[in-house]
């Protein structure tokens, strides 16, 4: 495998639609990293992924995959990536065996042995038509196809959405197995932040077409903290440090960006650890308040 620092690099990517736009989206997916891509519905996750995959054209900016321009070297890049969408894009008339024949001609590095290993691992019937598969089986088949041509980069758009916990776990196991050699990378958009808690090394958070955060998960979780205090107590905190405040009849819940700084301002306060979901929800709330969309 050739050397490159980042599997994906986005610099100032802009894309406008009549009712939505991506604004100066920039982030990197380092080689060997699982990047979670989170945000609420309509935040711009799918548009960003489509821009990376060049299924849509961008208005401005630059996208590099394996250090190469994503349009100029499109075919070369696409031999080395695998894509999983939230809905299976294979016709219901086909079978798992058919998919093996089809992809063996499309991907130069297609490996039928690996493919049938995944088909066996996921307990997929080989001769049954895809139309008779359950939702979970369809997703597993798509993942089996994605993991069988030695791709260096996996791009996943909500791969675990709508799946039951057992299937989600199987799918995540397959991704972890895929990442074992340390040379491969994953960009995975998901609503299910608990899945990302298990698998992601880094997370990028997008809201209203703008990147809010992009950093290592452990740093992000260590840095942020949730303070539960009386309604007025949090006023001693540096306003720059406060992400958002939720008031209820028992007091206030305050998400802070820098728990060390907050601890020095409020030495007696208990600062709880947060998870990705807390961070996402508080940041979205903050943005909604800024835009005057909150319910008082």
């Amino acid at each position, binding site marked *: 495998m050739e050397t490159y620092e980042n599997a994906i690099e986005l610099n100032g990517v802009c894309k406008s639609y009549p009712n939505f736009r991506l604004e100066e989206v920039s982030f990197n997916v380092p080689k060997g990293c699982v990047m979670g891509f989170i945000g609420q519905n309509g935040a711009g996750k799918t548009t960003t992924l*489509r821009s990376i*995959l*060049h*299924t*849509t*054209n961008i208005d401005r900016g630059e996208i590099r995959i394996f250090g190469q321009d994503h349009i100029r070297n499109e*075919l*070369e890049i*696409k*031999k080395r*990536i695998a*894509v999983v*969408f939230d*809905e*299976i*894009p*294979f*016709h*219901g*008339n*086909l079978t798992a065996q*058919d998919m093996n*024949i*089809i*992809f*063996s*001609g*499309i*991907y*130069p590095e297609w490996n039928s042995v690996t493919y049938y290993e995944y088909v066996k691992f996921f307990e997929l019937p080989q001769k049954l038509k895809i139309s008779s598969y359950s939702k979970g089986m369809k997703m597993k088949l798509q993942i089996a196809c994605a993991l069988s041509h030695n791709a260096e980069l996996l*791009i996943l758009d909500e791969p675990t959405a709508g799946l039951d916990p057992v299937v989600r776990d199987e799918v995540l196991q397959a991704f972890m197995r895929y990442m074992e050699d340390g040379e491969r990378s994953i960009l995975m958009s998901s609503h299910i932040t608990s899945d990302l808690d298990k698998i992601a090394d880094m997370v990028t958070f997008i809201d209203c077409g703008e990147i809010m955060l992009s950093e290592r998960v452990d740093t992000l979780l260590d840095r942020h903290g949730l303070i539960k205090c009386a309604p007025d107590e949090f006023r001693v905190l540096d306003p720059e440090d406060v992400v958002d405040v939720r008031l209820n009849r028992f007091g206030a819940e305050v998400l802070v960006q820098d728990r060390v700084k907050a601890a020095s301002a409020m030495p007696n306060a208990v600062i709880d650890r947060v998870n990705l979901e807390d961070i996402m929800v508080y940041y979205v709330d903050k943005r909604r308040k800024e835009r005057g969309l909150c319910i008082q």
Partner: protein
Amino acid sequence: MHPVSSLIYREKLVGQASRKKRYIEYLIFLLIYIMFTSGINQSVGGELLAYKHIDGWGTVMFFFVMLLPLFGGIMAAYPGPVERTDRVSGWTRYAYTLPVSAKDHAMAKVWLTLVNSVFYIACNLLYTVVALRHLDVNILIFVINFFSFGFVICIGAMILAKWSNIMARRGKHPKIVEVVTGILAFVAFCLHMMVGPMPMDDFLWRFTTFQTLGLFALILPAVCVLYYWTLREAYMVREA
């Protein structure tokens, strides 16, 4: 296996059900047509076709010979509902993520059209052989020309539809295609008027000539190349 072979294999499987249905429909249509046309007045058929010595079942057969290749040509070129099902299933978008060039995508579609033509050509040839036993005239050239005519009409319509789609995806108004089509139709009409009015029997008569055969020998490859180029352009255009 080459990517083109893979795409052809996939599309063959995906379109299998609809293709079988169309083949059966085509055969049923032919049977119905035989029954329907068996009552046609022989003199009407004779005058229309300028083959006054053909009568009875010969007239019926001649009508049959005329329509069989026309519809055969149209159906050979028509890709069926595969494109729509691909769009609905998400394959159209997914295909952009595969390491397959626009050239290969287009080539696969053109090959499939040519392969699909084999069934319809075989039907026409078979019928021509049968018909030749009952008719005194050689209808082979007529059949080839009418098949080509149907094929060209259908491919032409698909090329226009594709360009309309390409323009829309490029953010240009699809009306441009309609305007260009209108201009071309107008030019064709003017040429036709310059040559002189053409009665129906004269029009049909021209399909029996070697000149028309030669003309189609030039037009068919050109239309296939244009179809390939249009498909390639369509694959190169991404979503707005």
